C-alpha cells in the first residue's frame, strides 16, 4: 500500500482504497457476510423457533467474535456450525421451559398473494417438518438437514462435522429411514384423525 504524499504521518490516508480497519474486524465482517444466512437457517432447522432464531444467530457470532483468534480460517464454517448446534440446544431448552408456542409465521409476514394459498400450505408443512425433525436423534438430524435441506455434499458435511465420510453416509441412510418412517406415521395419524371426525 502506498502512503499518500500528503497524508499526515500516523494517519491512515492512502492513495488507493486498500486501507483496512483492524484485521479481525474485517475477518469478522467477512464471517458475518459469508455465513449469516447459513447459521440462521441451520439454527432454524435445529429447532430454534420464531424470534429466537435471530437472537441465537447473534449468539453464535458473538462467540465467534470472542474466539476468532482461535479459529483457523479454513475451519470458520465448521466452528460456526458447531457453535450453532450448542446454541440451538440451549435455545430449545429455554423454549421448553417457556412452553413456548411456536410463532406462527403466517402471522408476521405480509399476504404474498397471488400465491397465498400455496404459501399457507408451505407454512403448515414447515411446522410439520419441525415435528418430524424433532423426532430424529440430533446426530441424524444434523446430517439430514445439511444434506437434504441445505444441500451440502457429504464431503462438505464431513468437514463441517469433523467426521469421516463413511460415518456421514451411514448416518444419512439411517436419518433418511427415520424421516420416511416418521412422515408415513404422521400421514397415517392425519388420515385416521380425519376418519374419526
Amino acid at each position, binding site marked *: 500500500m502506498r502512503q499518500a504524499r*500528503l497524508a*499526515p504521518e*500516523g*494517519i*491512515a490516508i492512502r*492513495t488507493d*482504497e486498500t*486501507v483496512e*480497519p483492524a484485521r479481525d*474486524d474485517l475477518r*469478522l*465482517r*467477512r464471517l*458475518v*457476510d*459469508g*455465513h*449469516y*444466512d*447459513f447459521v440462521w*437457517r441451520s439454527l432454524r*432447522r435445529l429447532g430454534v423457533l420464531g424470534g429466537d432464531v*435471530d437472537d441465537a*444467530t*447473534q*449468539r453464535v*457470532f*458473538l*462467540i465467534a*467474535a*470472542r474466539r476468532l483468534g482461535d479459529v483457523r480460517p*479454513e475451519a470458520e464454517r465448521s466452528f460456526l456450525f458447531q*457453535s450453532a448446534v450448542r446454541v440451538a*440446544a*440451549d435455545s430449545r431448552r*429455554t423454549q421448553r421451559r417457556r412452553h413456548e408456542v411456536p410463532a406462527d409465521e403466517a402471522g408476521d409476514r*405480509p399476504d404474498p398473494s397471488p*400465491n397465498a394459498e400455496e*404459501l399457507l*400450505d*408451505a*407454512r403448515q*408443512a*414447515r411446522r*410439520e*417438518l419441525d415435528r418430524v425433525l424433532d423426532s430424529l436423534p440430533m446426530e441424524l438430524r444434523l446430517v439430514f438437514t445439511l444434506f*437434504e*435441506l441445505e*444441500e451440502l*455434499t*457429504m464431503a*462438505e458435511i464431513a*468437514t463441517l462435522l469433523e467426521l469421516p465420510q*463413511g460415518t456421514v*453416509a451411514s448416518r444419512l*441412510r439411517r436419518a433418511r429411514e427415520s*424421516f*420416511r418412517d416418521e*412422515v408415513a406415521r404422521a*400421514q397415517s395419524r392425519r388420515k385416521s384423525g380425519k376418519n374419526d371426525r
Partner: protein
Amino acid sequence: MSDLERLLDTDATDAERRLLRSARLDAAPSAGKAHLLGALGLVAAGTASAPASGAAALFAKWIAIGAVAGAVTSGSVQVVRTFASSNDEATRREAVTAPARRARASSAPLGAAPNEVDPSGAVGKDALALNESALVDGDRASSNGARAASAGEGRPTLGGRANARDGRQKTVDFRGKFGESPGVPGAPSATAFPDVSEAPREPKLDVEVRSLDAARSALTSNDARGALAALDDYDRRFSAPRLAPEAALLRVEALLAVGRRTEARQVGERWLSRDPSGAHADRLRALLDDASRSTGDQSKPARP
C-alpha cells in the same frame, strides 16, 4: 465417495416432498444481520455485495483516520453507527439480489470468498419464489432495523465525543458479556435497540465520504485549488457534516498548499479552539507550526 442423491431428486413421496420443500421458507430476515453488525461494532449491512471494496473501503479509510487520532472513539463508532441509518437502500438491494446469490454452490470450496459464491446458499432453484416473499418482508424489517441501529447517536461533531464514547463503551461491554461458552444464556435481543424509525433521515454517509474523498484526491494530485473547490462543495452539501474534523484538516492542508497561510491558520485555530484535543488536533498544530516556521516555497504544502 459418490454422494447419495437427495430425496427430492429421487423417489420422495408427495408427503415427503411437501415437507422437504417447506424448508425453503427458512430465510433470514436481513434486519437481524444489521443488528448483529451493530452489536459487533461493525458497519451495518448494505455493502454485502462488495464489502471489501467501494463504499466499505471508503469508510474504512475514514474510520482509520478517526481511529489513529485520539478522538478515535468519535470517528469509528459514529461512522459505524450512523452508517447503519444510511444504508437502507443498499440493504434493499442485497435483499433483492439475494435469491440470485443463493444459486446452488455446493462445489464452492469451504471458506471461499463469501461474496463471490455464497457457500451456504444451497437452496434449489425452485425455492426462489417462496424465498422472495420472505426476503421482501425481511427487507422491510431491515429498514427499521437499520434505523434502529443508529438509535441515540449524537451528531458526530468534534464536540460530540462524549456521546460517541458512550456508544463505544456499550459495544465493548456487549462483546465482553457473551463469553466462550456457547451455552451462555441472555444473548442480546435484536429488539434491544430502541426504535427510532420515525427519526429524520441523515444524508448518506457514503456520499459524504466520497465528497471528501474528491478533495483528498485532488490534494494528493497537487491540485490544491481543486481540493478547495471540492471542500467548498462539501460544505455546501452537508449542513451537519459528520466528517467535519477531516474536512477541516484537508482544508488547512489545501490552503497551505496554495499559500493562503492566514486563512489556513484561521481555520486551524478555529478548530483547535473548539476542540483542542480533537481528532486531528495534533496534526493541525504541526501543520500550523510548520507553516509559521517555513520561509520557503509557498506553493508546497507544509509537511509534518
